[in-house]
């Protein structure tokens, strides 16, 4: 499928200086975001999802962090080379962002109306009254009742779900082409999560060419909302494909592990143990060499997985995996071993 790319990330490396050495949080990540798509990024905590998003926004705190390699192009324009001023212009204008905890990005001492209006006036040539009117319209659009009145309220006067709606309204008020949502519903109840996801998707569909990067640790959220999905682990992309490819035909042992960990009630079955991935996510300073997943993988091959880093290889059109099991030379071995790689 040849698609128009809105964002192209190439060989991104973002690292942090720590007292224990250099932490390679994102270690050679490449992906495209197409126009009109919702791209999911999943993986356990610490796998590098947020650092990827913050790198695209160029919001990595420096020091200790730094983007040391790579290219990030928005509609063909390299944004890693942009002067700070232009980057600030682009942020909020062409790329909007929503975080897990809206309170970290809302200022508690200003009213919602003040903060929204400032955001709009920073990017659009409009007077205060127009900006206020636009703010009220945005609140209305995200389903906040009596929007004019609520403009005078402070963030703490909104419930968690309503605050997340305000964040969406703010992030979309300058009509960005790309919306990055980092765990936007993780702190919310499922009922409110369903409302927020529905809202994000319906707004995306209304805006021609607009795309979303949805970061979450919840595979079920990805299955229901995304077109394609990236599975990350240890700062690297382990698998990427359409949602259908990855959920119906998962390839990477890590993807299998994640899918199998989800409790999946089956009528008539009683209290059984879940299939969990053994061990823990290694500390970023203690990531193994070669395959990052080799310390927890049940299929790891001696002499290969512990010595050679697997490449991200295309197995079917658009479906890539980083795992030695899928290399032609090892195919026989895995078949002989009788590995059953289906969920």
């Amino acid at each position, binding site marked *: 499928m040849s698609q128009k790319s809105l964002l192209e990330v190439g060989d991104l490396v973002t690292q942090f200086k720590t007292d224990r050495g250099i932490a390679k949080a994102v270690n050679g990540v490449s992906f495209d975001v197409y126009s009109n798509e919702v791209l999911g990024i999943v993986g356990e905590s610490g796998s590098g999802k947020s650092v990827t998003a913050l790198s695209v926004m160029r919001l990595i705190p420096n020091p200790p962090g730094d983007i040391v390699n790579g290219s990030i192009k928005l509609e063909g324009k390299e944004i890693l080379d942009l002067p700070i001023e232009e980057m600030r212009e682009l942020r909020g204008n062409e790329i909007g962002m929503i975080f897990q905890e809206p309170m970290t990005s809302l200022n508690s001492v200003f009213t919602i109306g003040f903060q929204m209006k400032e955001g709009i006036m920073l990017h659009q040539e409009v007077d205060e009254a127009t900006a206020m009117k636009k703010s009220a319209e945005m609140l209305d659009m995200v389903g906040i009742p009596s929007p004019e009145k609520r403009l005078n309220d402070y963030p703490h006067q909104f419930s968690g779900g309503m605050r997340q709606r305000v964040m969406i309204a703010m992030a979309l008020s300058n009509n960005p082409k790309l919306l990055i949502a980092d765990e936007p519903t993780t702190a919310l109840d499922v009922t409110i999560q369903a409302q927020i996801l529905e809202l994000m998707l319906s707004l995306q569909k209304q805006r021609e060419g607009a795309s979303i990067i949805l970061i979450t640790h919840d*595979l079920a959220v990805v*299955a*229901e909302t995304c077109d394609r999905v990236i599975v990350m682990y240890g700062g690297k992309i382990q698998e990427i494909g359409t949602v259908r490819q990855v959920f119906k035909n998962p390839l990477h042992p890590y993807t299998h592990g994640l899918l199998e960990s989800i409790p999946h009630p089956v009528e008539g079955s009683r209290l059984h143990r879940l299939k969990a991935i053994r061990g823990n996510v290694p500390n970023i300073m203690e990531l193994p060499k070669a395959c990052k997943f080799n310390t927890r993988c049940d299929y790891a091959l001696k002499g290969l997985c512990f010595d050679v880093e697997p490449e991200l290889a295309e197995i079917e059109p658009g479906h890539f995996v980083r795992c030695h099991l899928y290399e032609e030379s090892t195919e026989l071995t895995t078949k002989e071993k009788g590995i059953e790689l289906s969920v």
Partner: protein
Amino acid sequence: MSDKRLLLEVKDLKVHFPVYAGIFQRKIATVKAVDGVSFTMYRGETLGLVGESGCGKTTVGRTIINITKLMFHDAEITGEILYHMPNGEVIDFANLTKKKMRPYRSEVQMIFQDPYSSLNPRMTVQQIIEEPLTIHRPEMSKEDRRKRVLMLLDRVGLQAEQGGRYPHEFSGGQRQRIGIARALATNPDLIICDEPVSALDVSVQAQVINLMLDLQEEFDVNFLFIAHDLSVVEHISTRIAVMYLGHIVEYGGSEQVYFNPTHPYSRALLSAVPQADPDSGRATRTILEGDVPTPLNKPTGCPFRTRCPIARPDCANGFPSFEEKESGHWVACPYVEAGVEA
């Protein structure tokens, strides 16, 4: 059934928090956090308690282990919490003073959602797990306590030498293991698990759930399992009670409630749970409008009627009585049929 042995009977439990204002600190309102909750737990069963945040789950848990009054001394608690000891003796926890409660405290323990804030950061893991023993088992020798802590560390999958470390040195999942070891220390009869896996990654959640299933068998302990994730609750529970705004609105066998949710609230709650299957069909979802109202301003009658898709004027007249829609499956809504789409 005569072979079912009672563990806990909660009868018409109400926990109200008065709200004061003005210079005379006059009582101006009441937060009815729990407003008439009744349920029964049998030995060997796990009861799952589900509902959106703010519906009163934590307050029910805290009140059962009798710490609500300690935390908020003006809380008004009425109703009964009858604990049936293994020897048949029955004690009402709702009406015990702090002092009278002391001998039973070791029998009911709680595991909290946020493993970080619930563990004292200045104590080593060894001390954290040992503390309940020091308090409740003064007769135990130091050596016996140490042995028990080592055994517990081993059972929850931590290494002996990790006992000397501090909570911040552990991941979320490991901290939850520490919380579980601590809760098990006194060999309690009942553990209230308040969203123990909600903050964890799905892979870690699976490990902790497996651990809890194993330990339940090994230590012969009963769980009241509070969570908002219905698939997790179905997985671990024998029976499920669904709470909304201080009330239980549905309870039954875990499969009855999960596969045949009947109260309009349970149906909406279940339909909101995303499925890890791109074919599951989000299109058929009923999305609840709005937030849970605050318990300060509860609707009269059925608490759910302001968000209920099938509400009618009669719903404002008193809390609906429970009807047994199928054997053992109770629903507080007169207008739904089990198995029939609303």
